[in-house]
């Protein structure tokens, strides 16, 4: 077994080797492409594997340091402790900036190796070669970050246990979801590097047709799927850990994850217009560049300390590096798009705005506007501070007001677009195809009003959700009738399953944000209070303690049945209170219980807060459906189209132009 002090040496060595391997690999690939030397191309493969091995060794060295409590490393002093349970000690790797960059690096090196393996027979193709070179350069950038501004293996003086070694932030050692949410979110963030790399390769080689889109569509789809799951799991974590009863608060870190999701969503829709009609080439390239850049910008905004967030868990000096990286990506991409401007002109044309491509365009404009509003709201406090030297906050009231109308129009488009044919739709066709979905919307609205829902915005959301759900189910039923179970496969039909997931999330958010009831009670042991049609009996109020925390728990029986146990824990090392809610979940509503400060076991008094939140479970089921739909969309359906099939707009014959 290695001595503990070797972890730092091992980590640093791995990072240096990884940096060198990815830089040499990128240079070798560029040289091979320029000299058209296939033997040189083969030399890139070991460099790619070496970079992956280096990233794995660095992560293993850090995990080993955390597990063995190697206090010689500053990062272990920052996030390690003797009291942290094994699971949270393992996840402490990504509980602060330096370790998060190591995780990012590992996933990036994995993606690079998978791309290299997947295209091993075509590495001599300049488009594939440039894509791999770009990925290796991005990997080198992250190795550089991990060696410089976010050095996780920096040595530290002997620890002063009175001041250090308290373990990860209490919020990150409180729930199992911390094991899954960050890695899955990062799989999404990092995954968009692959389509971005192929886009840059297409620009460099001038092969800006539809070939690179076909190559990267599954990569983009999986990255989008992971990002969606990661965001939904983040909402779940917030719901289960933060104790305020909500899933989304428009916090800068949340916004930073939503920005690439919005541009990525726009991309996976507009890419179909390019494949089918040969249009929107610049737009699609710009969306991919935006998606990748926004992952970097989001990381800069939230990890550099320029904006404050409860989820940031960092105060690093990484800012200038990430901002520099963001600038380089933007300048290089825009310069390449400008350089290839002549080849990017669309050969196609849109016949009518009332068509599938017209709906995709409208959806893209709305998603881009959505992203712009969120970016503006997130950075606006910085702009005001720079201009007027005063601090302001831009929070959920602003984001709710601005994004609600956009969300409603997007839901409406989700209802109409699946019924629209490519090129042009007639009024008769639309009246026929949309009839039953529209009545689904009306039925949903009637049901909502019937159960007491009020307010124009949530009612409109339910109506459009019913409409969109009807349209998606109609499409799936028609496809299943034609093709059996294969009717669920393929991009269009898998996409409809994703639509159903997004609709469930929208309904869950609209209902839980609009119709939550909450109340606070001070109740003695044995007493019962009633609220929102339920009774709450305080069975017991008691103190508890473990290695990390002391706190108070209350056993609360809901409707005379099972007892639920909300708690407040004071993490002694941090002096920080963490409220752990206890939730009775069902498909219709959640009953969310927290105990508040003022609860006293000595007198048997519980200060209880009760939230009755409708349809929260729909958000989690919707997230799961999005994941399932993404997988279904990645399988080819029955009507497979070869990349060489005509996809651009049909060109009219001379006689059609002259004669008609």
């Amino acid at each position, binding site marked *: 077994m290695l001595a503990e002090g070797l972890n730092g040496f091992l980590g640093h060595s791995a990072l240096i080797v990884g940096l060198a391997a990815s830089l040499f690999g990128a240079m070798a690939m560029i040289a091979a492409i320029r000299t058209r030397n296939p033997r040189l191309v083969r030399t890139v493969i070991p460099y790619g594997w070496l970079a992956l091995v280096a990233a794995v060794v660095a992560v293993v060295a850090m995990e080993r340091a955390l597990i063995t409590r190697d206090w010689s490393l500053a990062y272990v002093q920052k996030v390690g402790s003797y009291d942290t349970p094994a699971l949270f000690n393992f996840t402490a790797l990504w509980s602060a900036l330096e370790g998060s960059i190591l995780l990012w690096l590992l996933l990036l090196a994995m993606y690079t190796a998978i791309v290299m393996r997947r295209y091993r027979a075509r590495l001599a193709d300049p488009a594939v070669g440039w894509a791999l070179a770009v990925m290796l350069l991005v990997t080198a950038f992250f190795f550089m970050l991990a060696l410089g501004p976010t050095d996780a293996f920096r040595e530290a003086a002997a620890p002063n246990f009175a001041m250090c070694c308290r373990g990860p932030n209490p919020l990150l050692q409180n729930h199992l979801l911390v094991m899954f949410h960050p890695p899955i979110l990062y799989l999404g963030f990092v995954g968009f590097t692959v389509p971005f790399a192929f886009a840059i390769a297409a620009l460099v080689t001038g092969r800006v047709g539809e070939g690179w889109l076909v190559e990267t569509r599954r990569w983009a789809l999986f990255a989008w799927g992971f990002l969606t799951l990661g965001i939904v799991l983040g909402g779940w974590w917030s719901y289960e850990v933060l104790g305020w009863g909500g899933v989304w608060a428009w916090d800068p870190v949340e916004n930073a994850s939503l920005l690439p999701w919005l541009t990525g969503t726009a991309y996976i829709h507009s890419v179909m217009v390019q494949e089918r009609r040969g249009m929107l080439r610049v737009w699609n390239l710009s969306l991919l560049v935006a998606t990748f850049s926004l992952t970097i910008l989001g990381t800069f905004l939230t990890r550099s300390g320029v904006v404050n*967030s409860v989820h940031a868990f960092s105060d690093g000096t990484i800012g200038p590096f990430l901002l520099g990286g963001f600038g380089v990506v933007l300048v290089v991409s825009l310069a390449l798009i400008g350089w290839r401007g002549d080849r990017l002109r669309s050969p196609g044309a849109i016949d009518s705005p009332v068509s599938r491509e017209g709906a995709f365009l409208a959806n893209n404009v709305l998603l881009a506007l959505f992203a712009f509003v969120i970016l503006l709201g997130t950075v606006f406090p910085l702009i005001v501070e720079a201009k007027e030297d005063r601090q302001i906050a831009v929070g959920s009231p602003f984001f709710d007001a601005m994004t609600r109308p956009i969300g409603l129009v997007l839901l409406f488009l989700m209802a109409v677009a699946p019924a629209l044919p490519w090129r042009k739709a007639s009024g008769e066709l639309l009246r026929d195809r949309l009839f039953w979905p529209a009545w689904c919307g009306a039925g949903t609205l009637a049901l909502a009003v019937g159960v007491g829902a009020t307010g124009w915005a949530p009612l409109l959301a339910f109506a459009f959700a019913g409409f969109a759900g009807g349209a998606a189910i109609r499409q799936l039923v028609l496809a299943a009738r034609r093709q059996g179970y294969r009717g669920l496969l393929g991009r269009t039909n898998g996409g409809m399953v994703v639509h159903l997931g997004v609709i469930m999330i929208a309904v869950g958010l609209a209902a839980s944000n609009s119709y939550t009831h909450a109340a606070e009670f001070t109740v003695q042991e044995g007493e019962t209070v009633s609220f929102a049609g339920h009774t709450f009996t305080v069975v017991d109020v008691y103190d508890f303690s473990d290695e990390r925390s002391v706190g108070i728990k209350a056993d609360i029986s809901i409707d005379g049945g099972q007892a639920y146990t909300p708690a407040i824990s004071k993490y002694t090392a941090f002096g920080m209170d963490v409220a752990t809610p206890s939730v009775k979940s069902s498909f219709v509503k959640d009953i969310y219980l927290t105990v508040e400060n003022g609860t006293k076991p000595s007198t048997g008094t519980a200060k209880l807060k009760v939230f009755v939140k409708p349809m929260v479970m729909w958000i989690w089921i919707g997230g799961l459906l999005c994941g399932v739909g993404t997988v279904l969309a990645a399988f080819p359906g029955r009507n497979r189209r070869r990349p*060489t099939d005509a996809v651009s707009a049909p*060109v009219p014959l001379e006689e059609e132009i002259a004669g008609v």
Partner: protein
Amino acid sequence: MSGARALQHAKRWPGWVLLVLVVAGLLAYGSTKDVGARTPEERVEEISKQLACPICDGETVYESRNTASISIRAEIRAQVTTTDAGDDEIIAYIVQQFGAQTQLLPRASGFESLVWVIPSVALVCAAVGLWFAFRRWRTAVDTVPDEQDRALVAAALAAGDGAGEAGDDT
């Protein structure tokens, strides 16, 4: 008239007119329905969601559990239960008492108004841009392929027949 023909007929206009009437009626009823007065707790909640915790990292007073937020919530509760002030007046009072950094909704005047104006301008620009794009596309076909172009495409397709990889469905 058979059932299928009646349905086809309904899908033309009558069914749609009925649908619009039903939806409009339900929306009008649902959005104007009197839901009764809000409880003091619900008012405290709504107001505290509109205010930022002055010493936190981006949390609202509603979410935050620190002492500053607890005292602001207590102040809001006192205002709600002991005065006749409306929600906006209470928010203005809290901002005055606890500092401008508690205001989560940017003002609609001065430099801050830009955060409202810019998205509106962007929306108008996007709509105008889309309109021009559609107009340009609808009149965009200005080149006609000649025989040579067609032969080139046919040759490329023929050459690609054997080498094509699995594509996708749309």
